[in-house]
C-alpha cells in the first residue's frame, strides 16, 4: 500500500505538486492521468526515489520514503525513456542491472524472467537490434529483477505497436494478480479503461479525483453531468 499525505514539491518558484494526498491499495493498478505538466511524472519520480520530496509524508508498505535503501527494495521503476545499454545484449543488460539489487539472481533466473516477457529468443541479441516493442518489454523486465512489490511505470507502452502493447498489458495484469501494486502513467484511454482498477486525476499539481471509474461516473452525475460512456467520464474528469 502507498500512502501519500500533503505532498508538495517545488522546482525553483514553480510548485509542481500542491498538497497531494492519496492512498493506493496493494494489488491495484493505479492509473495516474492528467494533461502534460500536471505533475504526474513528478509524483512518480518522488515515489521512484529519483526526486526528493518537498514537504508531506510518503509511505510504502509502512516504510517512510526517507528510508531509501528499504524503499528501493520495494519498488521497480520503469522510466518513460529506455533505461538500457543499447550496445549490450539482452543477457548483458539483465546481468548488469542484476548488480544493482541487494540479492542477485542466477543466470537461469534471469533467463526465466526474460521468457516471461517473451524475449528468450533475443537473449544474446544486442538491444540496438531489437524492435521498439521488444525494448519496452525489456525495459519493464529489468525493473522486475529484484521482484519488487510496487511497480512504478511512466508511459511504458508509448510509441509501440498494438500487439506489443497488448502483450505488455496482459503481463501487467498477471503481475497485479500476484499482488504487485502498479502505478501507471498513461495518456492512452483504452489502457486506462482496460487496465486500471483505480485512477487519479492530476491538474496543475493538484489531485482532482482518486477512485474507480464507477465512482467517477457517480460523482459527475451527481454534479448534473450526462455521461454516455466511460470515455466521456474520463474526458469530463480531465476537462472539468
Amino acid at each position, binding site marked *: 500500500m502507498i500512502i501519500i499525505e500533503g505532498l508538495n514539491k517545488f522546482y525553483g518558484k514553480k510548485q509542481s505538486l500542491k498538497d497531494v494526498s492519496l492512498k493506493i491499495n496493494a494489488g491495484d493498478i493505479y492509473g495516474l492521468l492528467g494533461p502534460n505538466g500536471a505533475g504526474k511524472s513528478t509524483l512518480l*519520480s518522488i515515489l*521512484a*526515489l*529519483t526526486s*526528493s520530496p518537498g514537504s508531506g509524508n510518503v509511505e510504502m508498505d509502512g516504510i517512510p520514503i526517507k528510508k*531509501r*535503501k528499504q524503499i*528501493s*527494495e520495494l*519498488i*521497480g*521503476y*520503469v*522510466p518513460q*525513456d*529506455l*533505461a*538500457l*545499454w543499447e550496445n*549490450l545484449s539482452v543477457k548483458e543488460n539483465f*546481468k*548488469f*542491472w*542484476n*548488480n*544493482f*539489487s*541487494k540479492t*542477485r539472481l542466477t543466470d537461469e533466473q534471469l533467463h526465466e524472467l526474460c521468457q516471461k516477457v517473451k524475449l528468450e529468443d533475443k537473449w544474446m541479441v544486442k538491444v540496438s537490434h531489437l524492435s521498439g516493442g521488444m525494448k519496452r518489454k525489456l525495459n519493464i523486465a*529489468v*525493473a522486475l529483477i*529484484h521482484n519488487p512489490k510496487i511497480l*512504478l511505470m511512466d508511459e511504458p507502452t508509448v510509441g509501440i505497436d498494438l500487439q506489443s502493447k497488448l502483450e505488455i498489458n496482459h503481463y501487467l495484469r498477471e503481475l497485479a494478480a500476484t499482488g504487485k501494486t502498479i502505478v501507471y502513467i498513461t495518456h492512452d484511454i483504452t489502457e486506462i479503461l482496460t487496465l486500471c482498477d483505480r485512477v487519479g486525476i492530476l491538474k496543475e499539481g493538484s489531485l482532482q479525483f482518486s477512485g474507480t471509474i464507477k465512482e467517477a461516473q457517480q460523482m459527475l452525475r451527481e454534479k448534473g453531468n450526462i455521461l454516455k460512456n466511460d470515455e466521456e467520464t474520463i474526458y469530463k474528469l480531465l476537462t472539468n
Partner: protein
Amino acid sequence: MNLGIFFVKFMRIIKSPFSLLNLVVVPIGATLGLGFLLEKGQQDLVIPVAFVDEDQSGFSETVKTRLQNQPKIQLYFPSRKEAERMILRKEVDSVFVIKEGFEDSLLIEKREESVEVWITSSSLAEGIVRELIASEVLRMTSNIKAAEFIVKHYKKQNKSSFELNYLWQEAFNYSDKQWEPAPLMTIDYETFRDENSVKDLGKSTYSPFLGLWTFFSLFSCFLSIGWIVGERSLIFPRIKSTYKGLFSYIAQSVGVLFIFQCIQVILSVFLLSRIKAIEINLDIIVSMILFIFIGLALSVLLASVSTREKNYYLVSSLLVLLIGIVGGSFFPLQELSNKLSSLSFLFPQALLLDNSYSTLTIDEIFYISVISCITLLAIRRLHIK
C-alpha cells in the same frame, strides 16, 4: 561489498578497443610522439645573442670564440649602437658587452663590472649566456691566479723577466687545460657524468615528456568520463531507484577507469625511463597517480554540471587545453610568467612539473582535499537532482 558493477565495467573496457585506446594507448603514444618532435625542435632551436667586444683583447677574443662554439647560441658581433637597436627591435635575445679594460681587470684579479648585460622582459637565454661568460671569466681568473702563483715562486730563484713571462704563459696554459673537457672537474662533475643521472639528461634544456604526459592524461580522463553526461537522462533515473544507487555506480565505474589509468601510469613510467625522460622511483609514480585522481575528479565535476554530451566534450577540450597551457604542460611556467609560476600550485601539474614530487606540500594536500570534497558533492548533486 558487492563489486559486480566494477567487474562488469572492467570487462566492458577490456572488450572495447576505443576505451583501451583512450585510456592507455593514446596518452602514452601521443606523449612519446609529440615529445620526440618537440625535443627535436628544441635541439634545432638557436637563440640570437649580441656580443659587443669593446676590449678587443686576447681574453675577450677567447670568451668570444668559446661562446661561438656553443650549439644553442647564434652569436652576432655588432657595435654598441647597433646592439642597442637590435635588442630594441628584439632581433636578439640579449646583449653582452665586454667593456674596455676587461683583460686588465682580470689580470689584477678584479672581476666585478667587467661585463655588461642588456636584456628585455622576454629574454630567455640571458641566464644561460651569463653563466657561460661567468664560467669563462672564472676560468681565466683561476688561470691567472695559478700563473701568478708560479711566477711568484720562481721570482725567488732570480729568473729573468723573459723567463718569468714564459713561465707565466706556460702556467696559464697548463691551468687552462685542466678545464677541458668541461669546466670545474670536481666531485659534482663526476656525478653529472653518471649516465644514469637524470640531472645530466636535460643539459639545461626543458624536457617536454612529463608535461605532455600531464596534458594527454588529463585529456584522456575527461574523455573517459563523457558517459556520465550520456547516461544521465536515460539510465541514471532508474539507477537512483535501485538498492545500490547512483553513488555506488559512479564510484565503481570511475574506480575501473582509475585502475586502467594506473596501468597507463606504470607503462608511461617504464617507457619514459627507458628514453631517460624520467627516473623510475616510487615518488614519481605516486605523484602521477595523484594527478590521475585529480584529473578524474575534475572530469566528474564537469560532467555533473553538463547537460549535453557534445557540450561536455567541447568544454572539457577547452578546459584541458587551458589547464595545459597555464599549468605548464607545454612550457616551463617560470619562463612564461612569474605570477603564473607562483600560482602553479592551483594546477594539477604542480604535483609533477615543479620537480618537488618527492615531497607532498601542504598546498598540494589542501588542493587534493578540496577537489575530492567538491567531487563528492558533485556526485551527490547528480544523485539528488
